[in-house]
């Protein structure tokens, strides 16, 4: 730690002290080379004509050259038309180069630098901030979905601020780097919202994502680094791809203020339709009649001691006389407002530039009481201290407050309870008290869901500061050194109060949980950059050392027994129980290098390498080395291509190969540890884990062939990629004999292959003065397959207390569903039938087999943007094919009149209208089996519950109008937007894009247990610039 500071401070002091001004020898020309958008061109060549004397521009596009006033300078840059200037007496030049073509001139941020798109040798997808601006979502990854080839995003839940399963080319959980800081992106809240009926945690339930702390409207660009050439510079953390997020910075010349506001309303996009009281009672009576008919035929069917009176006696609570008919989904959901206010200011002069913004985002959940609020402040500042030394400051603070929805995606949650609740039960009794669920006997319920929503008050408060101080010292026009010190400081404070009214806390008079989480990450990066052009060949070198240390501390306390009144903090508890305090940490030390060699704009070579050392591994195998190499050939620059020039204005072939790594196994997994334990008032040690001391890096060897093209003078452009990656030495939980005391161990072993194709096209279909039409389409095909495993056929559970739902098996994709194979309804008896897979004559879980998978085969998105005079209109839709969902909540909501346990005067849960298509009499060919009071006539963990979740979704429609004469403002635009307007799918749940269990585990992805429904949003917005 000390060394990190020492290093940085020493550099800053030295850099200021040793910055002399340049001594003029002859006439000194200073200048800046930019593109037509005033963006600096980095590495542009300035050559004194007729000599070999020259220089290149630095990262701000600036150059200095000493020459004779009579000289002629040639300024050239890949992808741009060269410019010739005669020096004369002018010593300061601002030179603007015109692009040769449209797309390939874009500046793309790469790891530890930036490049022209035309010079890139790796697979990088780039999104501009404006593409994702003003989307009514809390998590920016949500708005990337469908816009980037090779990137697939699944939501664990529709809850505001929720965590997402982000998958780059088949690999889960990419590294996020925001303005150079690798960001902690996982869920940091210690608050479990997933309990079973005994109050034990089951799964992680609803999780949050700390990526939500970044305000999407602060973003200038997002780059997704997908292949080895692009990502390997991030070495040990790049195996799952890297997402670089660059925020807006100041610009020199002038100033601009902008004010944005939008306001809208959200509703459940696709409500599930349930039976009303009358239909439900009818179903129960039908179920009893069916059972009675069977009993009359064969009394032994229900066992020896079966008492048939339960099939004929009137059911206490299932007559319709009360006339109650509650629509529970309506009771727990609402039309929820969403609001966003934002002010930003951008200004600068030659020396100092800054961008600052202030924003407030308030999203109420479509489920009652739930909300997410975020307050952001950002200041990005750049300052030139002198001609050699520059400072950059990036600073972002966020405060967020999330009122959590209890037990989202778990069987005791608000939504799951509401899905099963009987329509004969009211939300409130006539005296205004909450209806007691015990009195209405829908056995599925663990509490009145309206009561749970209101009386379980859970909040996660997030406080975050992200800051970087960077210095850049220029030794010469060819060489500069950059050093930065960054901090990511994140605090979370969780509270959860369960009032004494709730079933969860009535036994002990209220219960309260408080949790604190603190993360402090320090990062020091030092890089040396060199670039030189000779004879039209450019050599760029990068070398660097980075150090990072993360320290995490957590503490929590649980209290029980609270006095009346709003005294809900732990200090008010009669008993304070279960206090915890834990810490963990890791450190990384990395050495990185990159060589770019550009041969006359025709051949481009990139070699990168990174050596990473991590505290997570034992001394002997602590360091990993991750090299990559790539070559690109701009065929369109070759003379023989001239014939094709009329079709392809630019054509580039790229090829890359390399290694990336993954260290995400958690801290301290390489050592067998004792952890503290206690018994009878004494403390002791208990074994915590069993470790493999030889644990080492997981590696991903990636191969990529890409093709970038531009047609019709840049009106059409895009790329095509083929990738084949093999993840090996997988860090996986492997089965070991439990005679060791543990069932699994984290060790290296196993390989997963991802092969795929990505296609991307941008086309400008109309470009007239009054009308423009731009189209972007991308599609990704991917095949994921487990090639080897230490132990084949390991069962995994999406929920701890349910039967295995997933399996890891060689030859099948990660996230394959496990269950019985459903053979349909027997038309004669109405019984559901399953395959006796092991042919032992019994149908039991030993017959389980692979019955589906969560990941799609093909997915993509289509964007159309139209502009006509002052009107603009965009429509964005996306699709996914081949993905499936294990819709386990249907075991509850399609129970066909089951009583939960034979012989009881109650029913289990209400049914959806889907079950109308059920077997009623012999000969019926029905989707659902016979209604039955005694037997559960369905197969929970079976392919009966696996659904095709392919979809086509109209994700976003935006229509805007810009005032032709905005008066005092420089621009005024008003717009209307609909998010998630329409979805075409056969999926029966709320949304086909769900993934239970926090959504952060690809191995157990794709389970729907009554996940929080996704919203449809209508909003109006106003954007002012002045």
């Amino acid at each position, binding site marked *: 730690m000390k060394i990190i500071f020492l290093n940085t401070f020493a550099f800053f002091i030295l850099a200021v002290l040793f910055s002399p001004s340049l001594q003029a020898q002859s006439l000194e020309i200073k200048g800046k080379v930019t593109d037509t958008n005033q963006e600096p061109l980095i590495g542009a060549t300035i050559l004194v004509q007729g000599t070999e004397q020259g220089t290149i521009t630095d990262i701000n596009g600036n150059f200095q050259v000493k020459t004779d006033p009579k000289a002629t300078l040639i300024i050239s840059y890949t992808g741009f038309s060269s410019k010739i200037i005669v020096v004369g007496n002018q010593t300061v030049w601002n030179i603007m180069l015109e692009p040769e073509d449209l797309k390939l001139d874009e500046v793309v941020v790469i790891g530890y630098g930036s490049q022209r798109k035309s010079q890139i040798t790796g697979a990088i997808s780039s999104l501009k901030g404006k593409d994702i601006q003003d989307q009514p979502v809390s998590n920016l990854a949500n708005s990337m979905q469908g816009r980037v080839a090779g990137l697939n995003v699944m939501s664990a839940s529709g809850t505001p601020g929720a965590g997402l399963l982000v998958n780059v080319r088949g690999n889960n959980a990419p590294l996020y780097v925001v303005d150079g800081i690798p960001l902690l992106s996982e869920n940091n809240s210690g608050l479990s919202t997933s309990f079973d009926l005994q109050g034990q945690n089951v799964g992680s339930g609803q999780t949050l994502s700390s990526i939500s702390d970044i305000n999407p409207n602060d973003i200038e660009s997002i780059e997704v680094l997908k292949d080895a050439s692009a990502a390997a510079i991030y070495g040990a953390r790049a195996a799952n791809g890297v997402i670089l997020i660059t925020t807006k910075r100041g610009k020199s010349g002038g100033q601009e203020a902008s004010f944005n506001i939008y306001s809208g309303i959200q509703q459940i996009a696709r409500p599930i339709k349930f039976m009303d009281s009358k239909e439900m009672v009818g179903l129960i009576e039908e179920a009893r009649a069916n059972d009675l008919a069977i009993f009359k035929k064969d009394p032994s069917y229900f066992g020896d001691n079966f008492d048939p009176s339960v099939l004929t006696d009137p059911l206490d609570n299932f007559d319709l006389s009360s006339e109650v008919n509650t629509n529970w989904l309506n009771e727990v959901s609402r039309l929820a407002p969403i609001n966003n206010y934002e002010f930003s200011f951008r200004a600068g002069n030659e020396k100092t530039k800054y961008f600052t913004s202030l924003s407030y985002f308030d999203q109420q959940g479509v489920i009652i009481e739930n909300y997410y609020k975020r307050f952001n402040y950002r200041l990005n500042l750049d300052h030139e201290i002198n001609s050699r030394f520059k400072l950059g400051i990036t600073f972002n603070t966020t405060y967020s407050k999330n009122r959590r929805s209890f037990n989202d995606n778990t069987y005791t949650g608000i939504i799951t309870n509401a899905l099963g609740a009987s329509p004969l039960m009211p939300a409130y009794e006539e005296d205004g008290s909450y209806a007691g669920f015990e009195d209405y*006997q829908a056995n599925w319920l663990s509490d009145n869901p309206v009561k749970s929503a209101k009386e379980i008050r859970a909040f996660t408060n997030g406080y975050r500061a992200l800051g970087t101080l960077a210095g850049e010292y220029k030794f010469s026009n060819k060489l500069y050194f950059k050093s930065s010190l960054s901090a990511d400081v994140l605090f979370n404070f969780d509270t959860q109060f369960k009032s004494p009214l709730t079933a969860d806390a009535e036994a002990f008079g209220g219960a309260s949980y408080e949790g604190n989480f603190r993360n402090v990450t320090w990062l020091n990066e030092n890089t040396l950059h060199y670039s030189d052009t000779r004879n039209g060949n450019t050599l760029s070198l990068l070398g660097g050392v980075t150090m990072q240390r993360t320290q995490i501390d957590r503490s929590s306390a649980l209290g029980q027994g609270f006095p009346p009144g709003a005294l809900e903090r732990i200090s008010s508890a009669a008993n304070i129980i279960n206090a915890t305090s834990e810490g963990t940490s890791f450190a990384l030390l990395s050495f990185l290098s990159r060589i770019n060699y550009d041969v006359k704009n025709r051949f481009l070579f990139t070699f990168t390498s990174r050596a990473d050392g991590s505290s997570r591994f034992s001394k002997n195998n602590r360091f990993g080395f991750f090299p990559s190499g790539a070559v690109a050939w701009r065929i369109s620059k070759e003379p023989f291509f001239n014939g094709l020039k009329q079709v392809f204005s630019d054509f580039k072939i790229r090829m890359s190969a390399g290694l990336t790594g993954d260290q995400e196994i958690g801290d301290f997994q390489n050592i067998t540890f004792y952890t503290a334990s206690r018994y009878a008032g004494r403390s002791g040690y208990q074994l915590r884990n069993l470790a493999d001391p030889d644990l080492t890096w997981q590696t991903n060897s990636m191969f990529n062939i890409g093709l970038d093209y531009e047609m019709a003078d840049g009106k059409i452009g895009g790329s095509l990629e083929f990738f084949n990656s093999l993840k090996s030495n997988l860090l996986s939980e492997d089965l070991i004999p439990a005679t060791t005391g543990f069932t699994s161990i984290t060790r290296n072993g196993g390989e997963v292959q991802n092969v795929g194709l990505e296609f991307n096209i941008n086309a400008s279909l109309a470009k007239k003065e009054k009308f423009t039409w731009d189209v972007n389409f991308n599609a990704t095909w991917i095949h994921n397959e487990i090639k080897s495993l230490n132990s084949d056929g390991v069962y995994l559970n999406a929920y701890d207390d349910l039967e295995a739902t997933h399996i890891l098996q060689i030859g099948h994709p990660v996230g394959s569903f496990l269950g019985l194979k459903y053979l349909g309804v027997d038309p004669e008896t109405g019984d559901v039938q399953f395959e006796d897979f092991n042919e032992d004559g019994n149908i039991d879980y030993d017959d389980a087999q692979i019955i589906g998978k969560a990941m799609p085969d093909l997915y993509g998105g289509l964007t159309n943007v139209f502009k006509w005079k002052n009107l603009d209109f965009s429509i964005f839709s996306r699709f996914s094919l081949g993905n499936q969902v294990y819709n386990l909540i249907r075991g509850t909501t399609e129970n066909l009149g089951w009583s939960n346990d034979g012989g009881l005067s109650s029913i289990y849960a209400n049914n959806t209208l889907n079950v109308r298509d059920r077997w009623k009499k012999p000969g019926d060919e029905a989707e659902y089996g016979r209604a039955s009071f005694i037997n559960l006539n369905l197969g929970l963990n079976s392919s009966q519950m696996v659904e095709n979740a392919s979809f086509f979704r109209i994700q976003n429609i935006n229509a805007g109008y810009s005032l032709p004469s905005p008066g005092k403002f420089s621009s005024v635009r008003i717009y209307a937007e609909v998010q998630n307007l329409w979805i075409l799918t056969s999926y029966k749940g709320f949304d086909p894009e769900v993934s239970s269990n926090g959504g952060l585990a690809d191995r157990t992805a794709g389970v729907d247990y009554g996940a929080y429904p996704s919203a449809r949003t209508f909003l109006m917005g106003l954007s002012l610039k002045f």
Partner: protein
Amino acid sequence: MKKIIFFINLFSLFFLPACLDENSPNYLNVEGAIKDGASLEAAVIGLYSALQQSDYYGESYLLTSEGHTDNATTGGYQNLSLDQIGNREVTGANVISENIWTAIYRVIANANLVLKYLPAIEDLDSKQKNHLEGEARAIRAMAHFDLLRYYGEHWNMASSAGIPLVQVPQEIKDQPSRATVAASYQFIISEMTKAAGLLDQSVKDKSFMNLHAVNALLARIYLYKADNEKAAEYATKVIGSGDFQIMDATKFLDIYRSKLSSESVFELLFDSQNRSGYNGATFSREDAIRPELGYMASKNLQEFFNARVGDVRNNLVDFSSDNNDVTILPDGRTQKYRGEASKDNSAYIVRFAEMYLIRAEALGNQKGLADLNFLRQKRGLSVLTPNQVSTSNDFINAVLNERRAELNFEGHRYFDLARSRKIKSVLNIEDFRSVFPIPNREMIANPNIKQNPGY
């Protein structure tokens, strides 16, 4: 200038790898952890924490066996593993069984570490050191016996279906195979006997493994092994110790309402920081409904008690609709694990009453009746006359009924039925279900393990 920066970075190259050594504030490297008397004691305390695991004496071990018998009903809310227990159709995929298997071996792994490092400890006198060794050996032997009861054919000395005996800390590559039943008993008994010789007889804290507990467990083990002479001998040691007392019928509820009663021989304590699962799984709260209860007292148990007029133990099972939501009927709830707020119910690993029952059974219908009647009278029942239990079969049935009345919901019934070969006649399931199957996970991870017959 360049040189200076170069040297700064060179400096970091050489000294920074040392910064990659992180230490956890919560964990202690097992290597070198047990280095003196204090740390050895801490590791022995850890054995009790390991016994407290919810999959062992924290809940599952006892209640799962009950759920598999006529004492209890369970299942019914789409928890397939629980359904399997309730329907007595346990498969190798059963998650609950899998967790029990692992939890018990976790205790053994902890004990093996204690026994590995113990010999090198020098700052304890031999009495202290022996006592700690005795605790570790006894807990390890009890764990093996508890495995044998679930997964091995414990009634059949000729069977090869014993359990893997794990006597040293395991490495990942170790794949022990199953010992025979006879070898399993031999190991368990020899270890228990060794422990009895090591334990300090002046230490009488019933919340820790003690000499009486070891003798009581030996009585139990010999009874299972059908070595009746030894069973009676060890039961007598405990009964004659004078340290325990069967309470009067009026006070008898104190066993479950207070901690460490005079009827406790070895009682695993729980507290607010270490809660047990018994209350949540069997009672939870006053108006709890069926899906909230993991294990209900069966209607069959009610009928059993209805035929035992005057038995105060009937009060420990609640079938009344006044207190229960009607959805629980015809089943009821055990009252042995009340305390909905504290949830710190003990695990009654060995209770004194069992000693009388063991000795009665071991001595047979002639000599054993006195012990049986002693307990019956204490529990408010009339004595049985020799005529009522004239055959040994009648007597065994009377003992089993007494055991059922006394020990229901304490994890005995399933094993009692298995060792008396009554699984088929009483539970109406196939005989091979007298033991659980070896978990599938274990079969996959260790090819040397053979499945139990019938599965």
